[in-house]
């Protein structure tokens, strides 16, 4: 019963933090600007590269570009999650509440993830348009796995970003750290090509393009899902560790 109460309190605390994060994104111009720019570029890519006459009915070019666009967008979303709290001192009332570090991290991660989901949601109109206007109709399988891939990649970037944000009071530094770590994940396969095994295969396995290729073809390989899930969990655990460690300093 006590465990049940603790879980319910932790859940309610995490949800409170997530709601606050979400309202902070939408109450500041920066949140709306990020969403608008992302949708503008995605819309341009969709109209030029997907919704063009004589093109096959596939969303693949959209997912390729949407994935690359996450590179600046997600670090920008993640950078303020903890860094801003440390800079302004609001971490103090937050950390002295009954919410644990894990609750705070999960709540902030969920807030960022819901914001990204809100950013992706309008793009669902594209497959709907494609279904209406294209003949033959597009294969919905690769579209669904494409969105799953986008969500997993964004989730990983966000997890890297929240860890970077917890380590500093400087949001710009958090942004740059996330950007470089994520670039490392993106370019790992390419960097490994000039190396010998086991480094080559290890870097290939860490490379994001090597993990997302199957999703683009409509295949869900559980090893890829486990890779993203494991990496996200690892980054979140690291964030909890950093938040705890900053209490000891």
């Amino acid at each position: 019963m006590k465990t049940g109460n603790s879980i319910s309190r932790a859940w309610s605390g995490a949800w409170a933090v997530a709601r606050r994060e979400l309202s902070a994104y939408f109450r500041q111009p920066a949140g709306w600007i990020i969403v608008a720019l992302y949708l503008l570029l995605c819309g341009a890519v969709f109209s030029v590269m997907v919704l063009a006459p004589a093109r096959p009915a596939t969303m693949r070019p959209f997912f390729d570009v949407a994935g690359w666009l996450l590179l600046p967008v997600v670090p920008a979303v993640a950078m303020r999650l903890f860094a801003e709290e440390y800079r302004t001192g609001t971490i103090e009332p937050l950390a002295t509440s009954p919410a644990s570090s894990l609750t705070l991290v999960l709540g902030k991660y969920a807030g960022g993830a819901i914001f990204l989901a809100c950013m992706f949601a309008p793009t669902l109109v594209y497959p709907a348009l494609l279904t209406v206007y294209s003949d033959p109709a597009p294969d919905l399988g690769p579209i669904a796995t494409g969105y799953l891939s986008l969500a997993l990649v964004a989730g990983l970037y966000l997890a890297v970003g929240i860890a970077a944000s917890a380590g500093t009071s400087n949001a710009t530094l958090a942004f740059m750290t996330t950007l470089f770590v994520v670039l490392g994940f993106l370019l790992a396969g390419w960097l490994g090509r000039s190396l010998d095994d086991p480094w080559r295969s290890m870097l290939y396995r860490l490379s994001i393009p090597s993990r997302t290729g199957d999703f683009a073809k409509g295949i869900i390989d559980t090893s890829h899902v486990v890779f993203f899930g494991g990496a996200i969990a690892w980054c979140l655990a690291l964030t909890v560790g950093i938040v705890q460690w900053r209490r000891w300093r």
Partner: protein
Amino acid sequence: MPMHAAVRVEDVHKWYGSLHAVRGVSFELPKAQVAGLLGHNGAGKSTLIRMIAGFLTPDHGVIEIDGVDVETDRRSAAARIGYLPESTPLYPEARVEDYLHFRGRLFGMPWSARGGGVSRVVEQCWLKDVRKRRIGELSKGYRQRVGLAAALLHDPPVLVLDEPTSGLDPTQVREMRGLIRGLASERTMLISSHVLPEVEMLCDRVMIVASGKLRADGAVADLASRFTPGGLEVEALVHDEHAAGRFVGALGAIAGVTRVDQRAVGPGGWRRYAVHAAAGVDVREGVARAAQGACVTLREIAPTRATLEAVFVRVLEESAAEGTA
């Protein structure tokens, strides 16, 4: 059921790298006591407050809030304490009411209790007019009250306020003090402040921290008698300078008197003297005899009332002397 101190701090230490910021501080606050924590910048006061509030972890020692160890049961301890950090950090984009609801959710308050709690603290902290406003649009005084309302929302038995009036204008300071005084009857409070008259006005007990150690602890009057030598304020009618010289000489000759200062000459020839004496020596009878001998009419003999400022300065001097010894 055993009675716990509202706050118990036992042999607490904190290091920042090689800097020993808090050095073995111990004290207990009984229930419903209002204590002031004084110290200059860098004395270790804010570190101590932050450890009591659970924001920083002590490297050694135990801190308990209402019998609950802050380290081993942080969640329960946090529920028993209301904390207003220095400079009242808040989210500027949030509306007052939304922020208070957020705090309520964070403290696990159910919806029904939260609504009532928010209305109560809005009333208590005079926030009714601004409850729908964004925090970033409010004056510093209002923001401070929002911080206090957030600290009170879960109705904690212990309230820890770090510099609650810093940066406020005189009117806001008066309002904030009034607010704090109103809360004092119900709760144990620990108030950190630089403003000595404020501590004197609000607190039953004063603790002075210097170089990370608790250097003085007690009621203002007790500290005054402990840290300032005994002495009297004397008012006497002295007709001319010759008589004044004789009177001062006679006062100075009293056993235990260390110094005599003439303070002021009032209308009608009434003069005030400060008679400094060694601690614990009663020189009142000697003063009366000196007046009689010098043919001076006495109007008042009153013990010198040492101010908190004098106590504070004396404690810091002692601490500095100890540091250089």
